[in-house]
């Protein structure tokens, strides 16, 4: 019950943040893209001499997915903590009693692009596409190498005499100025369709390749 009250007080202290996860010993808040985590040490646990150290280590671990991390201690025990050590590690310190929650040391904001599940999935999809492209290229290259190997083998054996091939000269067709086809009110597949111009000339020009 007491723990519940402490958590409520802390939630109230950070009321501009939205609480996204609540457990007995910690709270996680979100504001914008930033994540704020708070490790709470209750008065009950503090009887254990390693409890503060344990909580501080747990708090530090939260930097993996948080931009700001606080350690929350009962007010009476705050005096035994060396604030400088917490500051050096970027940890903030909150103290609480039955009346209020106080921010003794502000937490340092650690800039980082937190990878959410969606980010991971997107990244995996991108990598899959990249891998697919690589596989396709690899396959085409393998086939090219195989062809080349065969050609080299054949050449080596003197089985192929390379004929002199006169290259066919391709006549360059200069682009004609395009007739602007109005697509007002027409379906999207009319847009930039070169056939509109070609078909508009049907019956007015000699057939080239069709017969």
């Amino acid at each position, binding site marked *: 019950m007491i723990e519940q009250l402490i958590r409520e007080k802390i939630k109230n202290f950070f009321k501009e943040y939205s609480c996204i996860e609540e457990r007995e010993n910690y709270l996680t808040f979100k504001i914008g893209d930033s994540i704020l985590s708070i490790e709470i040490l209750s008065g009950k646990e503090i009887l254990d001499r390693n409890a503060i150290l344990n909580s501080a280590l747990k708090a530090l671990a939260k930097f993996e997915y948080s931009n700001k991390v606080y350690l929350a201690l009962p007010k009476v025990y705050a005096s035994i903590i060396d604030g400088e050590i917490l500051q050096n590690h970027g940890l903030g310190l909150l103290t609480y009693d039955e009346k209020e929650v106080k921010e003794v040391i502000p937490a340092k904001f650690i800039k980082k692009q937190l990878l959410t599940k969606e980010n991971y999935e997107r990244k995996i999809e991108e990598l*899959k596409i990249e891998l*697919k492209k690589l*596989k*396709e290229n*690899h*396959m*085409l290259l393998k*086939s*090219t190498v195989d*062809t080349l190997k065969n050609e080299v083998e054949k050449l080596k054996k003197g089985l192929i005499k390379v004929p002199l091939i006169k290259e*066919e000269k*391709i*006549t360059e067709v200069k682009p004609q100025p395009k007739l602007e086809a*109005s697509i*007002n*009110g*027409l*379906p*999207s*597949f*009319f847009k*930039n*369709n*070169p*056939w*509109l111009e*070609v*078909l*508009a000339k*049907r*019956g*007015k020009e000699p*057939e*080239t*390749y*069709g*017969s």
Partner: protein
Amino acid sequence: MSEEEEYKKAYTFGADYGTSDFKFGPITCGEIPKIIHNRGYFLDKDSIMYKAFEASKEVVVGDEVPLYLQSSEDLSKLIYPMKNGVIKKEDERAWRVVEEISRYSLKLFKPSSEDFHGFYIVASLSSVSPKYMYEKLFEIYKKINEEEPLIKAATIIQQPLAVAIAHKATTCVVIESGHGNTQICPISRYPIKNAIVAVNRGGGDANALTGEILKDLGYGDLAREEAFVRRVKENLGLIPANLEDAIEEAKGKPEKFMVEFKIPGTRITIEMKNEAWMRFLIGEYVFNPNHEVYQSFFTRGMPKPKDIKIGDMIFKGMLDFGEAIIESIERCPIELQPHLYKQILLSGGNFSWKVPEDVEGIAVDAATKIKLLLKEKGIEDVEAVMTEFPQYSVWRGCIIYGYAVPQDYEWSWERMEGWNKLL
């Protein structure tokens, strides 16, 4: 905008007579046409249903058909007229379905506006449809118009041309592969008619092979149901980059290719374990059935795709797709050939194959397979792509064609194009 453009903007009509679906509608449909099965159900005139509904028509088409089906026996009265893209001249029932389906489509979109004086209808037929099919279709349109003036002018174009128009490609090769056959049609602003190559092999042949494989796996009783076999083919079949390499890989590491397929809604599960290498036989067969591995299936009675004559066209059975493309393109002017290889459009359901992520490279998609087949034969610099929106592209091509071709260009039987004015 001219008066003609203004009129056509409202009353151009596309009608794609596909093998299994009929896609139709006016330009005002926007991006997507209305789609119904290209089929008709012949009512039994002595039946209670016929008498009860006092139906004056003998053929039912469109969305109403399922309402008339009572048992699986009725399926024999269902006629799909465009099977293989060609209707025999004397096949009266098939022509009755085409007539009814055409009438149904025009009436469905008949505008009430006073300025409507008939549609500019652009019909699309398979590239292997003989001339008499064009004559028959025009006769049907004339007959419909005598009952009610719905068509101002009609024209008929080949489906590959419509695909090329919809894909904004003025120089390309369209390969249409359906259930029964495959057609390769080069286009350079016009379909190059004497370069069309037809192959008597399609999705149906891959189904037949899948059936034989299922028998070998011990599912002989299920292999008789074509719909089931087709699902197995679609879910288990793979196209190999190279058949021999793929078989070797799959025999060496069968665990990588093992598969289980449960037919949805049934208790049937097909398992391929050590025989998983056979998955590659299915895909390869579509593209090239000449490998010696298929010989054992032919010896055991599986029909070999034969050379046949449909209309004026010889359909070769065993020609591999790479060879067929080269044969088609080499009938075109030399200077055009490199440009054709650079834009190959693959259209039709027979090119939709899955490539599971973990076997990519060994299994490939249809476009890559075409590139590899051509590369084997020394053709480099090939670009092959699957068509976008395969279901609608022919209809879209028809709409653009109808809108753009001038109304004063009269139908010519020599050129097989122009407007046949019916009003």
